[in-house]
């Protein structure tokens, strides 16, 4: 049984894997070759060029994506926590109806919305000025790194919150009730009792968001000026301005290594869990 189960497993997973292999791994091979070779021989020239020109942007990218993930996680925890532990029916209901909308907005449109929303004289500042919250002279433009982070958080929070809320809803209510009965505040119940149980889901949702943010071109391109900027913009620029696929692919490899760093978090968890089983 065990042997055949193993085979059956491989057979079942094969079609999906084959699709990924044919339409992703195989073409990826070409990119790797071009990133590591010049005139047919092995070189790291493209990588040194990538570092020479874009070292600032590499750091910038990592900082942006990590900060966005952290804020996304926080926002999603607050939303999902309120949905699960909230006691006012109307507030929970309103929140439930609201929070998912950005999920349906494509990144490119989100970028465009934010470009006109977060600008110095954009809708947000204008609203604040009209409400008397700030003076016109205090209005500042958020169209820089803050704008990129804001857009990412805005777009990814519903995704993480959706998965997290589902996970929270399914954990054993009795423990949570017991915590509440012992006098723990809702915030404590959320962070000390509920969250540890759904950590795997949160991590996975964040890993998926992390990778997604790393690969988005339109948001850094449209929301912020180009100095410094994210690696996707640099990659597009290498290709469009110089037809330089080698350096672009080298930047691609660097981006991939960054996402691998995030994925290792997931892998480690999966392995330790597998060992525990």
């Amino acid at each position, binding site marked *: 049984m065990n042997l055949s189960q193993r085979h059956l497993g491989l057979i079942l997973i094969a079609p999906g894997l084959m699709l990924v292999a044919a339409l992703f791994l195989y073409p990826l091979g070409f990119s790797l070759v071009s990133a590591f070779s010049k005139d047919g021989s092995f070189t790291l020239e493209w990588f040194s060029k990538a570092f020479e020109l874009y070292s600032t942007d590499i750091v910038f990218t990592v900082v942006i994506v990590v900060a966005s993930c952290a804020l996304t996680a926080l926002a999603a925890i607050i939303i999902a926590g309120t949905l699960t532990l909230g006691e006012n029916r109307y507030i929970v209901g309103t929140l439930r109806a609201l929070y998912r909308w950005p999920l349906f907005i494509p990144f490119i449109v989100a970028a465009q919305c934010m470009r*006109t929303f977060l600008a110095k004289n954009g809708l947000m500042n204008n609203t604040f000025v009209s409400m008397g919250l700030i003076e016109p002279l205090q209005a500042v433009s958020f*169209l820089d790194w803050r704008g990129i982070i804001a857009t990412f958080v805005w777009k990814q929070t519903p995704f993480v919150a959706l998965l997290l809320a589902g996970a929270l809803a399914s954990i054993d209510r009795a423990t949570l009730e017991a915590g509440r009965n012992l006098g723990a505040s809702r915030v404590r119940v959320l962070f000390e009792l509920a969250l540890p149980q759904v950590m795997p889901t949160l991590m996975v949702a964040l890993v998926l968001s992390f990778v997604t943010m790393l690969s988005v071109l339109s948001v850094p391109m449209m929301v912020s*000026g*180009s100095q410094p*900027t994210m690696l996707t913009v640099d990659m*597009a620029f290498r290709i469009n301005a110089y*037809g330089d696929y080698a350096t672009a692919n080298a930047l691609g490899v660097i981006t991939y290594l960054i996402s691998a760093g995030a994925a290792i978090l997931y892998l480690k968890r999966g392995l330790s869990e597998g060992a525990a089983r």
Partner: protein
Amino acid sequence: MRILTIACSLAALMAASPLAAQTLNVASAGDQNMVDYVKDYLGPMFEKANPGVKVVSVGTGAGDSGSQKIYEKLDAQKGSATTDFDVVVIHQKATGQMVKEGLLDKYTANVATAKLATGEAARNALGTDVSGFVIPMFQSQTALAYNADMVKAPPSTFAELADWAKKNPKQFGYNGIKGGMSGVSFVAGWVYAFGGDAEKLMKGPYDAATKTTWDKAFADLKEFNKVATITPGNAGTLDMLNRGEIAMGPVWVDMFYSWQADGKLPPNMKLKLISPGMPGQPMYYAVPAKAGQKKLAEAFIALATSPQVQADGIVKKFNWYPGIDAANLEGKLDKAAWDKLFVDVTPADLAKNGKAFPIAPYFNDILEGYEKKVSN
């Protein structure tokens, strides 16, 4: 389930294949308005003249990245018998590359209107000889747009502009070099102004040592950037002008007019082409070497570059400068429409300050120099 899926998509595939006898696929690198120009104006006109033909217009994105996509697609199709596109509308940089790699057809001898375009742009694309391969669709030009309410005395040279920006910090905005060609054009103009021999950059010959003479120009530009605003893209510059966040910035003249027509710029915005000049470039009509419908493609381009269409479509409808020589449009256009084109930027300005982009190797040197010395 999977068999069902495949059956479905096969059915869809058949449904999607065109019923018209012949399809002419036109790919345009450019803004929405260029795609719509073919879709709504040229396409129907051509279909009417050629019953049974259907024109399909696709856009590949604005700026050089749009042309690059067309190049990549044609390159990916090197092994095929025919290419997906029959007519391509592309920028100079990609055109030079495509001509060198043999991806384009030398077709202009078969199109009578080719004789109407005799300017330098019809022969030379950033140093590559493209004569025979292209006919310009239109010419465009970058210029400084400024809000006349906020700027009473606009600068008229790059040096004056640098002073003006210092006195009015953050009021000048441009989009760096990664966000589109209007920023690139401004940087090229800066190097023309402060980097020495501009003529040599536009005409060649290429000398790899020249780029070392730009160090001061780049250092000054780095200083200048501190008092300037870096905007997100070509549209980003116009966007900030729209909201009054900057008072001045380099824009494409045609984009400027279409934004104004769309009600996205204050009515009191004006253009100025400062000296020693800023670059402009044409868009080209070209035919891929393996186009499936070469005859139709040539007929389509002949129509598109005929004086009447250039007058009505290019100048009157879209405020572009004509691709064929202006003299051929005489009598086809009322004076008002023609004059509208030159309200802010006069023909004399254009002749004096409308420059070409540098030849390709210098162009790359400028961009890479900027990356190394200004933005990093």
